[in-house]
């Protein structure tokens, strides 16, 4: 299957250990992306459910590895509630580039990510403030993965400057810092669990934890599903005008093919 994908897309494959079906799908959280993984494509669907929900984002992404560099792009599409009905629009295009640092006792990489609006106006968000709401920005990112046996620990730090369509609750421009930590626990050859917590500000979801189950259906094809719990939103610690209370959570499903 891996060879078939590689042949079809003329992209290089990534060798995988015989007992490892990840096939280049790196450990990944929700805010911690697989930016040090191999070449691949992905589809993701995240839906905010509950009384305060109604926004669903579909994201198609692709990443390409060239030696120690990885380049990637993603485009989200959102369906969301508006007064009196629903609307749908493209979100912001995301482009990133990562470089695997050649030193240290664990895998780490640094990168840059930019996002920009392509003329549509999806005035909504799932969790990240820079994904859908019209805006642009640049972010410097550091990610690390420690371990790699049964448990892989994941770390991420990011700092960026952003502009946005400045209608409440979004400011015209903002800086954002982010720290995230997570773990990917391998339960069986095909199955694992992923947990993550992240803190970021400015962001409409300043603190959240995530829990996902993952399954490598076949080598290089990974399915994940789980929940993102926006704790800060539940506590009312959000820049948006939302009172405290458990009225939303995010359901996440994604499918990633690595070559």
């Amino acid at each position: 299957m891996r060879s078939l994908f590689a042949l079809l897309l003329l992209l290089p494959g990534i060798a995988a250990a015989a007992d490892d079906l990840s096939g280049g799908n790196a450990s990944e959280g929700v805010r911690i992306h697989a930016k040090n993984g191999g070449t691949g494509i992905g589809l993701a669907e995240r839906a905010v459910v509950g009384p305060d929900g109604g926004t669903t984002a579909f994201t198609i992404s692709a990443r390409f590895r060239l030696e120690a560099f990885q380049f990637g792009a993603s485009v989200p599409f959102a369906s969301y509630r508006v007064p009196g009905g629903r609307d749908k629009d493209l979100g912001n295009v995301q482009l990133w580039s990562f470089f695997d640092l050649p030193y240290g006792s664990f895998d780490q990489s640094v990168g840059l990510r930019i996002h920009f609006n392509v003329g549509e106006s999806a005035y909504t968000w799932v969790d990240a403030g820079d994904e859908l709401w019209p805006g642009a920005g640049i972010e410097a990112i550091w990610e690390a993965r420690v371990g790699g046996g049964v448990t892989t620990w994941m770390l991420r730090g990011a700092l960026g400057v952003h502009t946005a369509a400045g209608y409440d609750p979004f400011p015209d421009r903002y800086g954002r810092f982010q720290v995230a930590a997570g773990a990917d626990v391998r339960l069986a050859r095909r199955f694992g669990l992923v947990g993550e917590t992240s803190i970021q500000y400015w962001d409409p979801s300043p603190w959240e934890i995530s829990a996902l189950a993952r399954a490598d259906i076949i080598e290089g094809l990974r399915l994940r599903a789980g929940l993102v719990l926006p704790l800060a939103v539940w506590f009312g610690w959000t820049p948006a005008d939302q009172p405290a209370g458990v009225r939303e959570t995010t359901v996440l499903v994604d499918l990633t093919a690595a070559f």
Partner: protein
Amino acid sequence: LLLAGLLAVGCEESGDEGSFIAPLDGQTGIAPDAALEVRAPTLDVPPDYPLPELIRVVDLAEGGFVPGEVLDDGDVLSFVPDLPWAVDRRYVWTVDIPAGIPHGPELHIAGQLSGSAVFDTSQAVAVLAAGLDDEDRACLVLSRHADPEILEGARVTADDQEVADLAFEVEGPEVWSDELWVPGLHPEVDLACLVTGEPIPPGTRLRVWWADSGPWVADVEEISPAELVIELHRGGL
């Protein structure tokens, strides 16, 4: 400092100051080409954000919605009818700002702006309310600028007792509107203050007749006529 600056982002005040509708509720003498305005400085909505009709107008003589366009000019929403207002016609207009949707733009609007009000293109003069000015005179809020001559020969009863030795002083906004503290509000109505031997206390029910009009009924409220004008404009205090 950086952290404080970041935390301060997005923390803006959203008061009701400077909000009102024009014309005021019950105003007469509206010009055929007059626009209906809702000044809502706190309503900051993306121009391409889909919203239902924010202002709707119904012709009370013929029924049905009046076709027109709602324009968003920053702080002011305007309804401009496709055709001029008909003469001697009464209309009701409704301001309906929906609540914001979670995970969407916040629609801040002063609560008192939403609702219905009437206006009239006839030149009739009506009494809309009555209050006490700073000289404790009972003053009627009229529905438009009024020629003082129309009040000649007017009759007034206070709690059904005829008011004798009656005189009126008609005062335009240039006299009393400096009391108004709503920026941008320019009332187009007059006050008719009763000059009487005995002061008329608050709570008194006035009935007023002039020419072939009346009776107009108004209870004297213990607030100034200027504040009543602001209320009829649904102004934020």
